[in-house]
C-alpha cells in the first residue's frame, strides 16, 4: 500500500509570489550595482568585479545567502597598480586557465526589462588575460527562485584560445558554514592541487567543512549540479550547468582555505577551443531551494532530499518555480513507485513516506517528475 503524507507547509513563505520582477541601479561597497528582484529573490550584481552576483537575499524568509560583500581599493605605493580586494562570497565567472582576478570589470552594463523577466548584461574585454570579450547575462523571471546565467565568450584575438569556464560559488546561507552536496560520477577523484587521488565509485557526496577541514577536491560529475545547504531554514543554493558542457573533462570543484571558512561549490565546464572570431554561449542556473536537509536530487524544478530506513523511504521536496501537482516516479533497481507531488511554490516544501523501498544504497534511488 502506498502511504504518503504531506508535511506542514512552510507558511512563512506562503505569500503572494506573483510580483513583477524589477531591476534598479544602486551602489554596493562604493561600487555601481544593479538589483534584480522578484517576490523570491533580491540579487545584487556588481559589474565592476567580474559581474559578480555579490548579494542574494531569500525574501520569503528574509535570509541572506552570501553574507556581506566588501570591495576595497588600496594604494600600496604610487609605483604599483592599486591593490583591490573583493569578498570571495557570491557567484562569478572565471577562467580556470586564466588569471584569476575577482576585481576585473565587466564595465559595459545594460539593464533589460521584459514583461516577466529582468536581466542585467555585462561585458568586459581581456578577461582573465585572454583576448576575449566575455558577456555575462543574469536573468530573473517572475516567481522564480532561480537566476539564469548566460555567459558568452568571443575570441577577438588572432590565435585560437583554449578556455575552460569556471563558475564560482561561495554561499553561506544565513551565516552558516554549509554542507556542499553533489553527485559524483565514477572515476578518479583528485584531492587538492598536489594532494592525493582516489578512485570513487560515484554517488551522492556531502562535504562537511568541519569534518573535511581544508581538503579540496576535483570530482568527476555524476549529475549537472553542485549545491551548498545550510542555515536554520536549510536553504540550498545550487549551480546547475548543461550536461553537455560538463561532458568529457568538466568537473566539480570544492575547496576551502583558512580564510574562506567554508567550502566552495564550483563547476568547471569542459575545455573548449575558440577559433579567432569564434564565440560560444554557456547557460547555467543558480537557484535557491528551502527546507531540505541536503539536496540529493535535482530534477527540473524539483529538488529532493530523502532517506531510507528499513523499507521506508522518507522524502522531501522543494521547488524553483510555482508548479502544479505532478506525478512522480521513484525507482531503485527494478523497484518503482508512483506518487503525487502537490502543487508548490518556492518557499514551500512538502514531504512524505513510501513503504516497500528495497534494501539498496541511497545512490540507487532516482526521482522522475512527470
Amino acid at each position: 500500500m502506498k502511504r504518503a503524507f504531506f508535511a506542514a507547509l512552510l507558511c512563512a513563505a506562503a505569500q503572494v509570489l506573483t510580483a513583477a520582477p524589477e531591476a534598479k541601479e544602486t551602489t554596493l561597497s562604493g561600487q555601481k550595482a544593479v538589483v534584480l528582484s522578484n517576490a523570491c529573490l533580491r540579487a545584487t550584481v556588481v559589474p565592476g568585479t567580474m559581474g559578480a552576483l555579490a548579494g542574494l537575499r531569500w525574501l520569503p524568509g528574509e535570509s541572506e545567502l552570501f553574507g556581506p560583500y566588501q570591495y576595497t581599493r588600496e594604494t600600496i605605493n604610487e609605483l604599483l597598480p592599486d591593490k583591490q580586494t573583493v569578498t570571495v562570497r557570491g557567484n562569478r565567472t572565471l577562467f580556470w586557465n586564466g588569471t584569476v582576478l575577482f576585481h576585473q570589470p565587466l564595465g559595459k552594463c545594460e539593464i533589460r526589462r521584459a514583461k516577466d523577466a529582468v536581466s542585467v548584461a555585462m561585458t568586459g574585454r581581456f578577461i582573465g588575460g585572454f583576448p576575449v570579450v566575455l558577456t555575462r547575462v543574469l536573468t530573473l523571471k517572475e516567481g522564480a527562485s532561480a537566476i539564469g546565467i548566460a555567459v558568452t565568450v568571443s575570441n577577438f584575438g588572432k590565435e585560437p584560445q583554449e578556455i575552460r569556464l569556471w563558475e564560482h560559488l561561495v554561499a553561506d546561507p544565513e551565516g552558516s558554514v554549509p554542507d556542499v552536496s553533489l553527485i559524483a560520477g565514477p572515476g578518479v577523484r583528485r584531492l587538492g592541487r598536489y594532494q592525493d587521488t582516489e578512485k570513487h565509485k560515484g554517488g551522492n557526496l556531502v562535504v562537511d567543512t568541519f569534518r573535511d577541514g581544508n581538503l579540496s577536491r576535483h570530482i568527476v560529475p555524476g549529475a549537472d549540479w553542485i549545491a551548498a545547504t545550510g542555515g536554520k531554514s536549510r536553504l540550498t543554493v545550487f549551480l546547475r550547468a548543461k550536461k553537455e558542457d560538463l561532458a568529457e573533462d568538466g568537473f566539480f570543484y570544492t575547496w576551502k582555505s583558512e580564510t574562506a571558512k567554508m567550502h566552495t561549490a564550483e563547476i568547471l565546464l569542459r575545455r573548449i577551443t575558440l577559433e579567432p572570431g569564434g564565440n560560444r554561449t554557456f547557460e547555467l542556473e543558480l537557484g535557491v531551494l528551502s527546507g531540505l536537509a541536503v539536496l540529493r536530487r535535482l530534477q527540473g524544478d524539483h529538488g529532493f532530499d530523502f532517506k531510507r530506513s528499513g523499507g521506508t523511504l522518507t522524502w522531501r521536496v522543494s521547488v524553483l518555480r510555482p508548479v502544479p501537482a505532478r506525478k512522480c516516479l521513484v525507482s531503485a533497481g527494478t523497484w518503482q513507485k508512483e506518487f503525487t507531488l502537490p502543487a508548490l511554490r518556492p518557499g514551500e516544501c512538502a514531504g512524505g513516506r513510501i513503504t516497500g523501498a528495497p534494501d539498496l544504497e541511497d545512490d540507487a534511488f532516482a526521482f522522475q517528475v512527470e
Partner: protein
Amino acid sequence: MKRLFLALLAAAALPLAAAELEIGPEGIAVTPQDPAANWKKAALVPYMTLGPEGKPMALAFRNGQAETPELTWRVTAKKRHALTEISSEIENKTQKELWIEPELRLVFDGGTFLRFWDGFNVVKEAGAAPLLRRTTKSKFEKNVGASMMPFPVSAVFGKKSAVFLGGALFDPISFSASGFYPEARQLAFSFRFVLAPGKSVAFRMFLGESGTRYGEREGVVQKFYDSLPELWATDQENPYIWGAYTHYQSWWAKPDAELLRRRYATIEWCYCPYRRSGDIYGYDELSDYKMFSKPRNVPKLGGVMVDAGKMTNADYRKLRKERFDRFGRKFGWMFYNSCCGLWCEITLAQKRFPDSINDDPDVPRILTTWSTAYDKEIRTFPYGTGYQKFYEDSVRDTAKEVDPPGFAFDCGYGGAFYRGPAVGKDIPGRAWDEKGKFIEQALAVNRQVDLVRSLKGRDGRPLTAWVNGYLKADRNELEAGFRNHGRFMRNMPLWRYWVGPKPASISSHFMFTLLFPDWRTKTPEELTEALAKVADYTMLSAFKYGMFYDFVQTNGNPVLLYVMPELEECIRTGWQATVPLTTVPAGLRIPFRSRYGRGVQTIFYLGNSAPKPVSGTLRFDNAQLDGKRAVYLFLRHLREDSSTVNKVEQGETCVDAELPSRTPVLFRAVAGVDCPAGTLVTVSAQRQLHKRVITLDFKGKAFTSPLEVRELRAFRPAEVTLDGKKADPKAPLAFRDGSRLVLTYKSLEFRSPASAIASFFVGAKVRKQAEFTVCAPEEARSQAERFVTYFEFLKDKKVFGKNSAVPQVVITSKPKFEKGKILLFCREKQVSGAGRQSGALAVWAASPEALDRNITALFRVMDKTFVYDPPFVQTMGLPREPLLYTKLYGKCLPYRKFWGEYK
C-alpha cells in the same frame, strides 16, 4: 648568602643594555636600565604547568632554584651584550615521564603597557583581558611546506620603551607560548618539554629592554641581532650566496656563462636531481619500484633531456655526476634535496620507514606527482626516526659522489607537528599538547642544515645550505614577488625578522596579467611607463628588504642590474631590523628605508617613490648603531666623487639631503670618533676603480678620540693620515679645529683606473673586433678562454658582427708585456689585481679561483665598454603580447646612471 648580581653597564655609545637582574634568596628582582621605562621594579617569577591537564602553578626561586615534589628548576643569568641570558636546567626527580611547561613571568610593580607582541605579525592593543599566544602555527603558507612561526618573544610596549622575554631562534624547542596579563601586570613566556624519568632538560630564555622610537617590534628584534650574532652568521667568502638566483636557466638549459654573469647570477636551484623522491642518492637496491605515474622527458642537469623511466639507475647517476662535475661549482648548482627529508616517495616511506610518516592533519600529507612529477610522496620526519639515518647517509653519500657546492632545501618552514613513534624516544625537542607528544618539523630542518654545513666539498669548503623558507640557512629564499600582495605582504615583516642579516633572495613570476589585467586599455606609452614604475618598485623594495631578485625582473630593466653591486654590498653588510633615523621636517615621506650593518659598517638606505624629490635633514641616531664610537660620519654614495656635510648634534649625525624620485640613496658610515656636539665634518670621496680616498675635514672644538674606520670589501684596509701625518687608528688621535683625516684604500681587484682599462679596448670597441691575444699559463687556460667566451657572447647577441674576431689564446709560462696583449698570471703569493702595464692589460692572482674572481671583476668593467643589457623577452609571467604592443620586445627600458661610474 649567595647573591649573584649582574650589573650591566652601557658604554657611552652603546644603546640601552639589558634590564638589571638580581638572583637572591627571595627571588629574582629585575630593575630597568632604560631611563624611559615606565616601570621601576619587577620580579621574575617561575611558573610550572604539568601537562596535559595541569594549570600554571607559581613557584618561587630561592637563590636561583625552585623545587616541586616532581622537579628541580635551577637558573643562572649572564649578560649577552644587550640581553640577559637566563639559562635553566630542570631535573625530573620522579620515575615517570613529565610533560612540563616552564614559564617565566615578569611581574611588574607598576607601569602602563599599551601594546603586546606575541611574536606573530600583529601587535595587539592591551586592554583588560589577557592576551595569549598558545600556538606556533599560523596560516598554512606554502603548498608543501607549512606555516610562518612566531618570532619567539613575548613583548610589551610602553610609550617609549619595551620589555620582553624570549628564546633564541633555532634552539631545539618545539613549542613556545607568550602572554600578557594586563590586570596582574605580568608578561609571560614559556616552552614545553617532555622530560624522561630522572632526566634533565637545559634551555635558555632571554630578557631584554628596547626603545620604541624606531619601531616596537623592530626594537625587540634588533636586540637579538645585536646580542646573538652567531644565529645569523654568514660566510663572506662563500662564492654562491651573494648573488642572483639563476632561476633554472643553468639547470633546464645549457648554462650560458656570459649571460648568467651579466645577470649577476651565482646560485641555481637544481630541482629534483634524483629518480626517486626520498632517495636522493639513488641506491641500486631501491631503484626498482613502481612509479605512481609515467615519467616524462624533461630538461634538467644543464640542458639534458632526462626520462627517469627509461634510464637505468647507474646511467642516471653517471650522467648526474658528469654534469655536476662540469657545471656544479661553476654555476652554484645547489642539489635540490627532498625538502630536508620532509617528503619521501610513499612506498619507500611506508615499507622502510613507517615510523617517519608525519600525519599532521593541518598540512598536506600526501602529494601526487610533485617533485619528480611521477612519484606519490608522503610527509616524513627525518629526526629520531628510521628515516633519519638513511636520509643523512644519503646526503653524505650524495655529497661524496656528486660533490655539489651545496644543497637546496625546499619547504624550510615550521608549523607541522610530528607525532609518530619517535616521540616515545628520549630525544631533544619533544613537546606536548592536548593531542599528545610531538616534535616541530622545524627542528628536523635545522638539524639537516647543520649536517650539510658540517660537510666539506672536494675544494675543502663547507657545503652551502640554501633554504626556501625562514629557518636556519646560509641563504634564505622567499618564493613570492615584492609585488605579490598576498604571500609577500602576509609573510612580512616576520619572515624578514627570522632571516635577519643573512643573505636572502626572492623569486616569482613577473605577474604581468595580475598587475595589468586591463593593459589593453592603456596606450603603449602608458604601459611602458607602468612597466618602468614596476621595475623601480622592485629596485626600491630590494634595497628595503635586502633581497636579491632574478632575471625575471632584470630582463629589460637594466637599472636593476646597474644597482646590483650596491645591492650585493648592502646584503653582505647585513640587514638590520631598526632604521634609527629621523627627519626634519618630521614625517618626511620616505616610504622605502632600511639599514645594513652596525657601527662603522652601517649603511642607511632611503628611497623616495614619489614623482618629485623630497628634501630635508636626516638625523642618524648613533647610539642605536651598536658601534664602538659615539659618533659616526656618513658619506652619500656615488660611484663618482662626492661630499657630504655632517653636523653632530646631541649624539646624532645630521646631513641635509635631497632624495630624487625613484632613486635609491645610500649613506655609508666611513668613520667613527668621539667628537663633541657642534662638530662639523665635511666628508668627501675621490673614487677610482683601483683607489678610494676619503677625506674628512673637521671644524669645531678640539677633541681626542680613538678612530674607527670602515672596512671596504675588496680593498686593503685604509691607510690613515691625520693632518698629513700617518696615524694609528687604534691609538687616541688628537683632532683640532681644521684637522684633515684622510683614509686611503687600495683595491685588491684593480691596479689601474677604469679609464686605463677602457683605453685597452678602444680599438676593439671602435672596430668591433677583439684583435688581441690572451696569454696565460697552462693552469689558467680555462680562465683565458673566458675572454673568448666574452666576445663570442657579444657576437651571439649581435653587439659585434657575426664574423668579428675573438681573442687568440696563447698558452705560455713567459708572457711579455706588450701592447695588445692580455696577460694572466697565476702564482702562489701573487698580489692580486688587474691593470695596465707596458701597453698590456694584466690580471694577477694567487690561484685559478682568485683569477676567476678577478676576471669576473674585470669583465664588469669591460661591460661598460661592451654594453649588452638582457632585454625583455617572453618569460615566466610576462607574456609576449604586451611586449610587442609596447614595442619593448627585445629591448630595454631606458634608465639613468644615477650614481655615475667609477673612474
